[in-house]
């Protein structure tokens, strides 16, 4: 080394030129081994990943068009800055107050009073209802078997059987209360099969008035 620089710097020139640093014992012996291990890992990694990545067909030919599209979209977005919707003045301040009020409302308390009826009675009642329903159902099925209905529909059989048990008076009461103008054609159609006895004391005008009133 050319030592011209030593002139004028006696302190530095007088120093022993050695490295004051040290390394852990055996460091350089292991360094080569460590590096070889890392390189093995790097090789596996690069074999596995570097060459395995692919892109969809024609990706790069379409990429520039996609980028241009994004640029145009971003420009458009910039030109439509802001929100075109508005809210009434002071809306958000009031909203917060309203929400806080709602939150502060005391929750409704429902009493969970214990039933005075013993539990076994509930079970007994449930069993009785089940037995009664089952018996009724069995009875109905047997009835429909013994009196075969020409109609094939089973549900019709059941409803016909059920209606046959209702008294004529109940049916008439029902019709009196619930008949509307729309029901009239059906009633007229079936009127032949029912015989009506009109009280002789009722005047025909009253009867007409009654019918008009009921027919709405």
């Amino acid at each position, binding site marked *: 080394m050319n030592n011209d620089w030593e002139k004028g710097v006696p302190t530095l020139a007088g120093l022993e030129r*050695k490295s004051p640093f040290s390394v852990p014992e055996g460091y350089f012996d292991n360094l080569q081994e460590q590096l070889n291990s890392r390189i093995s890992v790097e090789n596996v990694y690069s074999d596995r990943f570097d060459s395995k990545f692919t892109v969809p067909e024609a990706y790069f030919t379409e990429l520039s068009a996609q980028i241009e599209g994004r640029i145009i979209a971003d420009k458009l977005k910039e030109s439509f800055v802001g929100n075109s919707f508005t809210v009434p003045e002071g809306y958000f301040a009031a909203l917060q107050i309203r929400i806080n009020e709602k939150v502060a409302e005391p929750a409704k308390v429902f009493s969970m009073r214990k039933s005075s009826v013993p539990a076994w009675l509930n079970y007994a009642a449930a069993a009785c209802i089940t037995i009664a329903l089952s018996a009724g159902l069995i009875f109905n099925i047997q009835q429909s078997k013994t009196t075969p209905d020409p109609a094939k529909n089973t549900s019709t059989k059941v409803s016909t059987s059920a209606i046959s048990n209702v008294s004529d008076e109940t049916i008439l009461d029902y019709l009196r209360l619930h008949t509307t103008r729309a029901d009239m054609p059906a009633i007229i159609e079936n009127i032949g099969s029912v015989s009506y006895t009109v009280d002789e004391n009722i005047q025909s005008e009253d009867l007409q008035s009654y019918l008009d009133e009921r027919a709405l």
Partner: protein
Amino acid sequence: MKQVEDSEILEKFSSERTRNEAFNLLLGKYQQKIYWHIRRLVINHDDSDDIVQDVFIKVWKNLANFRSDSQLYTWLYRIATNECITFLNDKKRHNNIPLDDVAYDLADSLVDSPYFDGDHIQMKLQQALLTLPEKQRLVFNMKYFDDLKYEEISEVLGTSVGALKASFHLAVKKIEHFLTSTD
């Protein structure tokens, strides 16, 4: 033991069959030089260990593309220097401190390091070096400790020989001043 020539290393590395052998020859020849170059710049052994490994991984990956228009060891020094500068810049960024303050940080790790065997005057020299701008510190280290020629340093740093001579001269004067003006 006779040191293997760079040309032989490169030739062996070019063949798949002898690539590992060539790389081990290269490690045997240069690992310590590169380690000490890094250590003088980043001071801390653990940091140096990380960087030296990263450097040689890069060498492994890129040696096949090495063109013999520069010398192998100046190419290695260049990679190591760049890694060190990147490391110091990252350190500055992560700690959110100016580069000059990185020097204080390094000086602290110098004092705390279990792997510093120098005496008081050696410690002062290292502290003086840490007061230098990064480029001057690099030039001084490569000239003073590694005994590289200005032409070789020029290849590593991409700086003209004249500028390097000026940097070294300035560094020497500053260090002398530090050594004589502090306890």
